[in-house]
């Protein structure tokens, strides 16, 4: 298992370092690097998923040529002992070279700052993941600014999970609205140096205009649908800001992969940036 420093070095994308990592996990489909920035371990609370055992998930990644996955734990949605959730996550990620652990921080729990410290410093995680809808706060809450500041100080990026499941199919008694992104421009303007990635966002084109020029704001592709949705997003927010995210194992990982190229609109450089380059750059920027 690479430590955080090594992960950051890998982010510089030196060909030799990248090749070493790929060699360690076996041959890829094409020799290209693919990084999934949006995945989870453990069990979805509402049904079993075919890939909700880490060995199956990693085997699927290997079969698809996905060389790295940034994983959090579904346990972080509802468990209150987040410290142990992140301990288990870190321990599982040590077993598989492909897995980069991203700790869950619940800003409604007392002493969440210690969890952040443990994730960034002790576990050497490059980022942390927030579930505002499941943990019951909005991005206009001052605690979000505090988290952003501490994450920037610790050189960790922040992933904000905008949704996990289509609102139309959620459990009747456990409904979670998509996160309201309206407060985000103001929040980001107040904290220098924090890098934020939105996960599972499905943002209307007119709303993107408020977000596309925000410094160090990134998007994933997990729920960007329509046959040309990914190239349109790239066109709207620029290729440097879009990263592959599959939302595996909740969603079938092949789906997001195929969407990046099916419309034949992204040029090679943009496709490589979305599939891995931007994720590498984000981590490199933490060094």
């Amino acid at each position, binding site marked *: 298992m690479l430590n955080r420093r090594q992960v950051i070095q890998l982010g510089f994308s030196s060909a030799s370092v990248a090749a070493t990592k790929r060699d360690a996990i076996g041959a890829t489909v094409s020799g290209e690097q693919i990084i999934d920035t949006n995945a989870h371990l453990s069990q979805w609370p509402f049904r079993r998923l075919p890939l909700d055992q880490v060995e199956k998930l990693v085997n699927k990644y290997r079969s698809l040529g996905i060389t790295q996955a940034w994983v959090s734990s579904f346990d972080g949605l509802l468990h209150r002992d987040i410290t142990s959730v992140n301990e288990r996550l870190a321990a599982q990620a040590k077993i598989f070279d492909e897995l980069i652990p991203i700790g869950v921080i619940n800003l409604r729990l007392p002493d969440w700052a210690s969890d952040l410290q443990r994730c960034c410093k002790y576990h050497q995680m490059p980022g942390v993941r927030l579930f505002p809808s499941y943990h019951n706060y909005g991005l206009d809450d001052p605690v979000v600014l505090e988290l952003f500041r501490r994450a920037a100080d610790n050189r960790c990026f922040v992933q904000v999970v905008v949704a996990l499941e*289509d609102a139309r199919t959620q459990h009747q008694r456990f409904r979670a609205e998509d996160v309201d992104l309206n407060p985000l421009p103001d929040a980001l303007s107040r904290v220098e140096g924090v890098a934020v990635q939105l996960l599972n966002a499905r943002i209307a084109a007119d709303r993107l205009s408020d977000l596309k020029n925000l410094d160090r704001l990134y998007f994933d592709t997990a729920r960007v649908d329509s046959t040309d949705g990914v190239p349109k997003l790239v066109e709207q927010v620029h290729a440097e800001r879009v990263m592959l995210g599959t939302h595996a194992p909740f969603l079938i*990982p*092949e*789906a997001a*992969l*195929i969407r990046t*190229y099916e419309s*034949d609109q992204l040029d090679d450089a943009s496709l490589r940036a979305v599939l891995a380059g931007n994720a590498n750059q984000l981590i490199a920027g933490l060094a």
Partner: protein
Amino acid sequence: MTMNRWTPGLPSPETLKRYRIWDSYFTPAHGHPGADGTKSLFADIVRSLPAIQTGHFERACYFPHVGTGTTSDHNLEALLQTQPDIVLSPMRRWSGLLLGMIQVNSNDVQASLQAIDQWIADGPMVGVYLPGGGPGARRCDDPALGPMIDRVAQLGGVLMVHTWFKTGGKRNPSESTPSELAVLASRYPEQKMVCAHAGGEWQQGVRAIRQHTNVLIETSGFDATAGFIEMAVREITAKRIIFGSHLPSRSLGTELAKVLGADILEEEKRLILGQNFRDLLQLGSE
């Protein structure tokens, strides 16, 4: 583009061709084909072609408006009624690709009966589509639809019904649920019906129709949620599942991955991706 020959997540072109993919739910300009009857429709078909070619689809079935009042554009409706060549033009331009099921207006049964005779009895359409919204939508178990269902059954046409189970209830009372389709299916046990989108929330959708062996489910229209196809194969067998792409508003990735990424047998994938739809259309030997 060099990398476009690299297609992670897809099997080889040879494997895709072996599946013989027939898309049962192609939705170019689904709500409105354009003021002239074709402009938006043609644009969306062209927009979808790269994905159709990437997936090596053989055929794709779309749902033309034919002037029965399925849009609120009165000029368009008049145009489509009086100039059937406009309706036929996409099928002529993409004759090797397109199949059609006409959208019918369940609130104007008489007009819909005439359209069924015009487009199915005399060809070339293969069935009817009951929309989930717009002026043509009505709950599919409403007895008023009886004459339409009877006529489709007489002609051996397919009945495709948009269905959803939505948390919090229907946004539109005219939209049908799989449970309502099950009621309709029990009245017409000899008529094959398709539960489009498997109800969206497919765990309930599959359960709602599983006892009704004349109902198949269609796979498109919701995120590529893992476990769907596995549950459906387990509960109703692969023979009762047909693939749909929902292109271009959904994607090849989302829709094809549901089947390709499922933990089922290759033979089951082949059935779902094409053979079952050919059988439903009684074109199994094609």
